[in-house]
Structure formats: C-alpha cells, structure tokens
C-alpha cells in the first residue's frame, strides 16, 4: 500500500512536468490549428540548453530558466515567422511535415554536438532527498512540480485575465471573426508559438533533471505528449493538465502493481477506451461542421 501511495505522489509530481510540455502543445494547436510535432525535440533542446549553461557557466538549473525560456521564446517566434507563416494552404498537414523536417534537423544537430550519449542534469536537489511519511522523495520532483505550478498559474493568468489572453481565446474560437474585430491574429499566433516553446524548455529542464536523455528521447516524449493532449481534448488547457497527471499516476501505479514494461500500454489502452466513448477527448469540444 505504501508503494502505491508513493507511486501516486510521484505520478502527480512528474505529471506537473508533463503538463508544462503538453499545455504548450495544446495551446499552439488551439490557436494556430497546427500540430507541433517538433515539441518533443524542442523539449530536449531546452534540456540541453540548461545542460550547457550549467556545465560551462555553472548557472543553477532553475536560475538558468531565466535565460533559456526567453531564448526559446524568441526561437519559437522565429520558427513561426520562417516556417509556419509562409504556409498558406493546407496548413495543418504541411505544418506537420515542416515541423517534422525541422525536428530532424534539430535532432541531427544535437547528435552532432552532444553525441548520442545519455546525459542527466545535475544540481544539489537532484541527488538529495527527504523523508515524507516513510518514503524518500527527491527534492527535484517537488521543485519541478512547484515550477510547473508557478508557470501554469502564470499561463492561466495570461490566458484568462489579460487583454492578450482575451485576444488569444478569441483567435482560438474563431480566427476569421477575431480578425474582423481587429485582433492581429498573426501576432497572437507568433507569441503563442513562442510561449508554447518556452514552456517546452521549462519542461525540458525538469525532465532532464529527473531522466537521463539524448536526442532520440524526443520520440518517446512526443508520443506521450500527443497521447496526453488527445486524452484531455485537443486545445483544452485543463484537459491537458488532468490528462498529464492522470497518465503519470496510471503509469507509476501500473509499474508498481504490475510491471514497468506495461506502464505506458495501460495508459494507451485507457486512451483508446476514452476515444471510443468520447472521440473528442475528455474536455475537448465536438467538432463543428467545416464551412
């Protein structure tokens, strides 16, 4: 029983980190109608940036986010401008392929620079742990979770309490109508893309501190993050949050009571069941007729 409780606790804590990555993805999907398949490799890129800052400049991982997140935000805005904006027709599919091509390039570059050896981010909190109710919990899990809570709270405030968020939600609901009432949807899209990528960078730092990674880890990450956003309903922030925590809890509990081998399979089976019952996901909106 103790093991199960421990699994649930770590599931919730790491679920927060996945929520960072998946909320970026679902936000980009909601506003721009594109699937950023490069999110996985961008998470890894963020992790490597933190790695470089820490190895070569001895900057603390969490302080380093003050540098990596703005850098990745800028990178995201640039990517949107160079690769997404020129696509005029058939955006959904073409952007998917373009982002995949980009992911290949980034993966190749990362492999060249860092080789295919697994690395893990280090800090005093990645090795130290403390005792809660009979089991030991590494500090990084708690810090990563707190980071996720802070950033996601910031995101909610941005999306639901500011003028920018108002424009963003308007663009999500109806792009054309948003343009008609004077919202600069292209600007909103660029900023949203940047925010999504910046969140990926933060998630990447927390991921890299709890897991050993290399560039190829991105495939595993993107499959999980995509599963999460389908489960929660594509374009729904709260859905992504619930699904992230749900997925990690299910995985951790399964690996304790059954076997780590089946951990993701059980989640994927749940996903299929959800899709049979509710094709649009937990909190997704049913698709309306395309005009």
């Amino acid at each position: 029983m103790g093991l199960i409780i421990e699994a649930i606790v770590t599931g919730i804590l790491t679920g927060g980190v996945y929520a960072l990555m998946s909320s970026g993805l679902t936000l980009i999907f909601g506003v721009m109608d594109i699937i950023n398949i490069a999110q996985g490799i961008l998470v890894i890129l963020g992790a490597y940036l933190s790695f470089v800052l820490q190895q070569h400049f001895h900057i603390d991982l969490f302080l380093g986010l003050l540098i990596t997140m703005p850098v990745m935000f800028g990178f995201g805005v640039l990517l949107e401008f160079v690769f997404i904006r020129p696509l005029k027709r058939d955006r959904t599919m073409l952007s998917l392929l373009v982002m995949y091509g980009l992911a290949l390039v980034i993966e190749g570059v990362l492999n060249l620079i860092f080789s295919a050896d697994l690395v893990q981010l280090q800090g005093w909190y990645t090795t130290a742990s403390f005792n809660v109710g009979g089991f030991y919990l590494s500090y990084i899990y708690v810090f990563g979770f707190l980071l996720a809570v802070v950033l996601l709270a910031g995101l909610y405030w941005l999306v639901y309490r500011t003028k920018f968020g108002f424009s963003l939600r308007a663009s999500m609901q109806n792009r054309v109508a948003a343009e008609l009432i004077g919202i600069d949807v292209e600007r909103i899209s660029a900023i949203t893309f940047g925010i999504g990528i910046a969140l990926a960078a933060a998630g990447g730092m927390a991921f890299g501190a709890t897991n050993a990674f290399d560039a190829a880890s991105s495939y595993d990450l993107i499959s999980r993050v995509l599963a999460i956003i389908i489960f929660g309903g594509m374009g729904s922030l709260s859905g992504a949050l619930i699904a992230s925590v749900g997925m990690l809890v299910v995985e951790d509990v399964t690996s304790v009571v059954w076997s780590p081998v089946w951990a993701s399979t059980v989640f994927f089976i749940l996903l299929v069941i959800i899709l049979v019952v509710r094709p649009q996901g937990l909190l997704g909106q049913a698709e309306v007729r395309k005009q």
Partner: protein
Amino acid sequence: MKILKMVGVLVLLACAIIFPQVFTDPTVTTIAVFTLIFAAVATGWNILGGYSGYISLGHIAYFGIGAYAMALFCLHWNIPGGYEPFLLVPLTALIAAVVSIPLGWIALRVRRHTFIVITIAMFFIIQLLAYNLIWLTNGSTGLGLPIPTDWGGYFFNYPFYYAALILLVIAVLVSWWIRNSKFGLGLLAIRDDEDRALGLGVKTVASKLAAFAIAAFFAGAAGAIYAYFVESIYPATIFDPNFDVAVVLMVFLGGLGTISGPILGALIMEPLQQYLNLQYGENGYNLIILGGIFLLVMLILPRGILPTLGDLWRKYRAMREQDTAVQAEEGMVITALPGRVGRSTAGRDESAPTAIAPNQNEPGEGINV
C-alpha cells in the same frame, strides 16, 4: 491521347522490368527494391490520404504488422528460404487489413487534426506492443527470417525486386480503378465536404473504413516483402516513425491524390534517403540534410511536383488560348474603344480555367497521368 498514355505506361513498365538486368550492381538493385516497396506503400496510402483526405501518420504500423506476420509464419510453419515465403504475402496483407479495421473504426470517428494525432498515437501503441509482447514478438531481440541460400551474388535481389514490382503494379491498378469508380468518387466527395457527401447518400463510414483497410493491406504486403528482404526485424527498425513520415512526404512531394504522384515521390525520396544514409550515416549529417531538403520541398513546392506542373501546363494552355482569342477579337473589333479589348481579356482571364475544364476528364485536382 489515351493511347499515348497507355504506350507511355507500358514503356515505363518495360523499363522497370529490364532495369535490374541493365544495372546489375547489388547496391543499385538494393536501393531499387526499397524504392519499389515504399512506392507500393505510398500508392496504397494515397488511396486513403489522397482520395478521402484523411491523413494517417500511422500506417507504418500495418507495415510492421505485415513484417511480423511474415516472420512468425515462416518461423512457426518452418518455411525454408526460397520462393515459398512470397506466397505468404497476400495472407500477411490480409492480416494487416483485418487488424486495421477496428483501429480504423475508432480513429475515423474524428476528423482532420485529431485523426492525424490519433493515428500517430496508435502507431506508438503498436510499436510498444511489439516491444512488450515478448512471447509473440521476442521483444527488442527481434525475429529472424529464413535466408534463401540458393540465391547468390547478383541474383539475390531479383526475386525481391520482381515481387515488389508486382505488388506496386497491383497497387497502382487498384488505385486507378478506385479513382475511376463510384467508390472513389465517394471518397473524393468525403475529402471535399464529408457532411454533404453523407447527405447525398455516400456511405461515408464504410467508404472511409474500406480506404483505411486497403491502405493497410498494401502496407502489410510491402512490410512482408521488406521483412523477408532485410532478413531480421526489430521493433525499432520496423516500426520506425521516419518511415511513416517518409511515406507521407513521398505522396506530398509527388502530388497528393494523383495516381502516379506517390511513385514519382518514392522514386525521388527513397534513393535520396538511402544515399544519404550510406554517405553521411556515420557522422550524423544525414538527418540534417534530409530535414533540410524536407523543409525546402514543403516551402517551395507545397502542392507537390505533379499538381504544380499541371498548374503550369494549364496556365500555359490558357494563355495560348487567350492569345489566339485576343488576336481573333482584335481582328474583328478593331474599331472598338481601346478599353473594350482590355476589359474583355480581363474577363476571359478569370474564366480561362473553367473554360478548359471539360478537357479534364477526372474530378478533383491534379493531373491524372
């Protein structure tokens, strides 16, 4: 024109048949075998993605199922290396198609982006199962296939080449037949406006599912030949997400929804990929170059080669027709107000594409070569 097309197709087919006799180098024929296999997958995929508009990024899952089915049959039925395993190809393809039906039914309940993402997720689920169902698939240790010991040297690739060529020809015939059938018309209607198609009496659910299963069928058959050709299969090399995107890119590069587009795309993409892997695989530049080419193609030729060429051809034809029309008009109304000619040509400019529309004998976009 029709006869010209027929002759052209037959000449191409003859070239394909004598190709390995002319270029006997095993390196070349190996690349040719891979190209034909992926051309067959792409042609099958195009029936779903190109005709019905449902872009699946998970059909390599069925390729993998075909590969594993082939390996398992050979293993459990003790089939020796030789021509016998090729007889199993239709069976493995059928298995892939049968597996695809329930999965397709789930995935096809949603549309557009959500469908894409669900097919990706399903691909990863099946990959995971290949890793985890150790009693069946032997996990990451992989499975071996019988090795045809009688075939040696230059001859080794020939049976695979012709098997893949036969598969490709069947796929193209099916694709062509569907394109010209009522079923295909229904698929195109689904692509253009699914709800209206449903309202007009197209059995959308059954049609989509049939297209999904046909695409899975050809992927499964190709996977079986591929597995026999490479001789040992592992979850990581068979369920490779790069294959998935490569197939989609082939279709997009050649021309989505055209019959010959996927083949053209495969002819360009697969040798390029193989060449990059051979040349730059060691130092890792292959991913960067491939990704770069990928980006360029998507940004410069977003509609694919054939549709872009078709557009240019149509524009050229329209321009020529317009020129002759303007000359005729100028000859007739030489005394009219100067502005009149300009206005009438402007009007013609707009109507030009529709004016030549009767010359196109197929629905939808793209030239049907």
